[in-house]
Each structure stands twice: as structure tokens, then as C-alpha cells.
């Protein structure tokens, strides 16, 4: 019998999502943080650990008036917040702090910010950017034609990722895009970077989110239903030059991170009731399903197209609509975590009935990094 040591006790997104021109990026962090503290009845005086990505963690500490004994500013892109959940858990287990606040805020749409969230890569700039792939839609998509040839992935299967996730978004009042779409709608949407059309690409939004973690022992004293971490999760990185990926059909960082998370949690794939896979673009859930081992290599596209991940399917995936339909600030990982927490609390507008275990997996940069955490409603297993 194993017992949880750390739990998520506070969770919230910013008051508004999508277009929030009235707040700066720092303000989005703070709005999310205050909402998460209110969610579990804490004030800044109760927080002794702070973590964020893509923003100076010390600025967040000062802005919120916190005096921490631990902080972490890991910034590897959108999965940073998933990474920070496991870093925070390790810090709590080691006694470096007792109550950690993880914040995300990003003015992706209104651009009320002084800097972009990902460190520039010197080698990416010198040897890739000079050829014109300057933004994620023309970089993150580079491996996909190879995968289509090697694994039989089709444009229609990529389109189905967007179609199925829109079905999930329809349940969420806060999702940006909720109207049903068809494969034809996706394939006929504006070409961005062949084979990728507009509807295969994520939204560009303003927003934020925050989580509060503490020891499982303390978690019962909070007004919220604890969401326990099962195992230590996983993380890995392959690097910011997408052309140097070992394989264009599979992410090494995904495989290493996912394997560590599953082994540490002692779970098999059939134990997973709910799954989030960060979808900056339509191919990400396909790589994720394969690299986490839910399906074999080359089977991810068909698995989604056949309806296995849609509402009522056997593996509910990206039940908030994902970065394609819910929102995507730029570093979306926080929103994937928030939906996993809602599902474990039993309060998602797209609630998976009886869900007890959720896996949340994210990408950082463009296949640059990865992180995975496992959440559960159960204190013991």
C-alpha cells in the first residue's frame, strides 16, 4: 500500500480568459494567484514557496507580498508548470517549504508584457531561424510530413483532432471556441504552414492559472477536495532545435517523461480515466498518445479519428477543448493542469463520470521539453 505525500488544495484560472486587455502579464499572474488562494482560504502570508515559468519568479514574489523559503523559476516553455508541480512536491517532501503557490500569467493576445516567455536559443537562431521558420506554426510543424510518410498519419486524422476537441469545448462555458466543426471545416480553413491549416493551430489568448500544493497530511484541513499526486511524475528535454530531434515520428522527451511518471505512480494505461496532452498543434495529442504508450507507434491518428477520445469514448482526452479550442496563452500547460484538477474534484463542465485518475502531460517549447504528472482522488493505493 502506498500513500500520497503531496496534494493540490487550491486551483483557479484568471477571472477572465481569452481577451483580458485590462491586465498586464504580472497582473494575470496575480489575479490567478489571488483566485487560487481564495479557493482554499489562504492569504499571501500563508505561502512559503513560489514557482513560475516564463516570468521572473522574484517579481511574482514581490508583487504578491510573499516571503518564501523556496522558489523555482524553471522556464522550458508551456510544460514548465507541470514540471513545477513535481519540483514543488519534491520541495515539500524535503521540508524546504510547506505551502507552494505555482502561478502562470501570459498576455499572449494583448501583449501587455515586457518580454516573451521562452529563452531564445543561440543555435536555433543561428542555424534554423535564418531560413524563415520564425514562429511556432512554422517550427513546431516541421517533423510532421516525415511522420505522415513513415507512420501513415493523414491530414484527415490531424483534422479530426481539432473536431473531437471542439466537441469537448462545447461543454465549457469559458472555452473560446465552442461551435461544432467538421473535418471539411478544418481542411478548408486558412493554410498556415502546409500541411497545417488554421484550425489545426492553437488559439492566442490572455489568461493565467495558479495551483497551491501542500502535504497530504495538511490537505484535509482545507475546504477543497484534495487532489493527490501519485508518484513523482516525470520530465525530460531534448532541446530547442527541432531539426535535431532524434526521431521526427516520436519525441524522446515525451517517452522519457511519460515512462518515469507511469513507473513512479505504479500505474498501467488501463488505470487512466482521464488524460490531458498539451496540444499547441493538432499533431501533439497523436505524438503524446504514442509516446506515452497508450497506443503503438503510428496508431495515434487513427485512435483519435475512430472516436476513442471524444465524449463517451474510452479514453477522454483534452476535455476542456485544449489549446485548439479552450484557450492558449502561449504556455498552455497550466490550463491542462487546471482541467485535470477539475476532473479529480468532480467539477469539470465536461466531467468524466467516476474519474479517479488523471494523467497530465505537456510539451515545452517545440518538442524541446516535456513533463508529466499523475493526479488521483485517492489518498492510498
Amino acid at each position, binding site marked *: 500500500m502506498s500513500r500520497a505525500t503531496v496534494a493540490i488544495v487550491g486551483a483557479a484560472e484568471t477571472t477572465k480568459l481569452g481577451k483580458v486587455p485590462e491586465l498586464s502579464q504580472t497582473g494575470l499572474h496575480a489575479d490567478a494567484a489571488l483566485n487560487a488562494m481564495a479557493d482554499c482560504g489562504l492569504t499571501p502570508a500563508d505561502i512559503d514557496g513560489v514557482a513560475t515559468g516564463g516570468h521572473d519568479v522574484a517579481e511574482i514574489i514581490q508583487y504578491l507580498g510573499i516571503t518564501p523559503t523556496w522558489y523555482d523559476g524553471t522556464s522550458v516553455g508551456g510544460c514548465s508548470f507541470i514540471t513545477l508541480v513535481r519540483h514543488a512536491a519534491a520541495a515539500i517532501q524535503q521540508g524546504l517549504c510547506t505551502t507552494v503557490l505555482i502561478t502562470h500569467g501570459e498576455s499572449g493576445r494583448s501583449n501587455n508584457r515586457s518580454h516573451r516567455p521562452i529563452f531564445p536559443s543561440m543555435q536555433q537562431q543561428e542555424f534554423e531561424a*535564418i531560413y524563415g521558420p520564425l514562429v511556432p506554426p512554422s517550427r513546431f510543424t516541421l517533423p510532421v510530413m*516525415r511522420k505522415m510518410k513513415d507512420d501513415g498519419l493523414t491530414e484527415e486524422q490531424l483534422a479530426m483532432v481539432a473536431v473531437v476537441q471542439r466537441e469537448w469545448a462545447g461543454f465549457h462555458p469559458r472555452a473560446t471556441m465552442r461551435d461544432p466543426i467538421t473535418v471539411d471545416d478544418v481542411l478548408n480553413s486558412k493554410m498556415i504552414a502546409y500541411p497545417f491549416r488554421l484550425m489545426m493551430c492553437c488559439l492566442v489568448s490572455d489568461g493565467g492559472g495558479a495551483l497551491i500544493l501542500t502535504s497530504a497530511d495538511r490537505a484535509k484541513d482545507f475546504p477543497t477536495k484534495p487532489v493527490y499526486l501519485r508518484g513523482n511524475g516525470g520530465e525530460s528535454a531534448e532541446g530547442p532545435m527541432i531539426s535535431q530531434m532524434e526521431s521526427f515520428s516520436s519525441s524522446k522527451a515525451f517517452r522519457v517523461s511519460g515512462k518515469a511518471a507511469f513507473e513512479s505512480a505504479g500505474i498501467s494505461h488501463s488505470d487512466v480515466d482521464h488524460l490531458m496532452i498539451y496540444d499547441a498543434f493538432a499533431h501533439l495529442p497523436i505524438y503524446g498518445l504514442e509516446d506515452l504508450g497508450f497506443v503503438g507507434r503510428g496508431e495515434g491518428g487513427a485512435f483519435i479519428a475512430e472516436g476513442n477520445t471524444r465524449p463517451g469514448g474510452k479514453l477522454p482526452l483534452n476535455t476542456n477543448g485544449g489549446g485548439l479550442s479552450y484557450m492558449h496563452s502561449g504556455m498552455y500547460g497550466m490550463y491542462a493542469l487546471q482541467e485535470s484538477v477539475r476532473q479529480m474534484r468532480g467539477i469539470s463542465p465536461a466531467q468524466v463520470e467516476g474519474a479517479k485518475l488523471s494523467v497530465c502531460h505537456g510539451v515545452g517549447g517545440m518538442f524541446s521539453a516535456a513533463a508529466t504528472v499523475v493526479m488521483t482522488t485517492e489518498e492510498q493505493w
Partner: protein
Amino acid sequence: MSERQVPTIYPETRFYWDGAKAGKLLLQSCTACDKAYFPPRPFCPACGSRDVEVIEASGKGTLYSYIINQLPAPGYEPPFTVAVVMLEEGVKMVSNILDCPPDPEALILDMPLEVTFEQRGEIAVPQFKPAGGAQ
């Protein structure tokens, strides 16, 4: 239209750009691993050895993957192809595909390519085009 970007060159990569200026595509190879690698650095990314040498690539490669970019980039007129080329030496690098329309009908994965050089001011940028002339 603004000019295409030129790379910021660092001490460890100077030889690569000097080679391009002389019409050579230069890689590095690890003595112990007997394996080429890219992008440049003064040690082998597979084993960490500093015992490496500069080698001249054959300039032959194949089309490994690509996108047809519709988004703006300084000095480029969309649509244009951004490709990953697999060199004969077993390393991958990004390139545009010159002398070839940005059209899936013309961009056949694994088709043979050869190096050419595009002048950007004082800098020569390695580029690839279909082997044996325009298709």
C-alpha cells in the same frame, strides 16, 4: 521588403561560415565515434570528447521533412519552403529548397538534393536544391 536575416556568428561557429564563404559545407566529426555531427561545437555531443575534426560534407542529401510557410519572414515572399535535409553524412539541417516550387507535388520526401550557397551581404548561407538541376 526587408533583408533576410544573417546569423550572429560565435567563436565556435566561425569556421562553418568561413567554409560557406569558400563554397564548402563544413561539419565536424568525432575521432572516437567516427561520426559527423551538427550544429557546430568543439566537442562530440554523443560522447563528450574534444578530439574532433572539421570535415567537408559531400553536399548531397535528401528531403527529410518540410512545411510550406505562409507566414511572413524578413526577406521572404510567402509561400516558401522550410525543409529539413538529411545529409549523406547522417546529420539533419534546416534549409529552404531553392529552384523548386513550394508545392507538395514538387516536394517529394526523400528526393535527392544538393548544396548551394545563397549570398546575404558578406555571409554565404548554405541552401539546398534538387540534385541535377531544377525539376
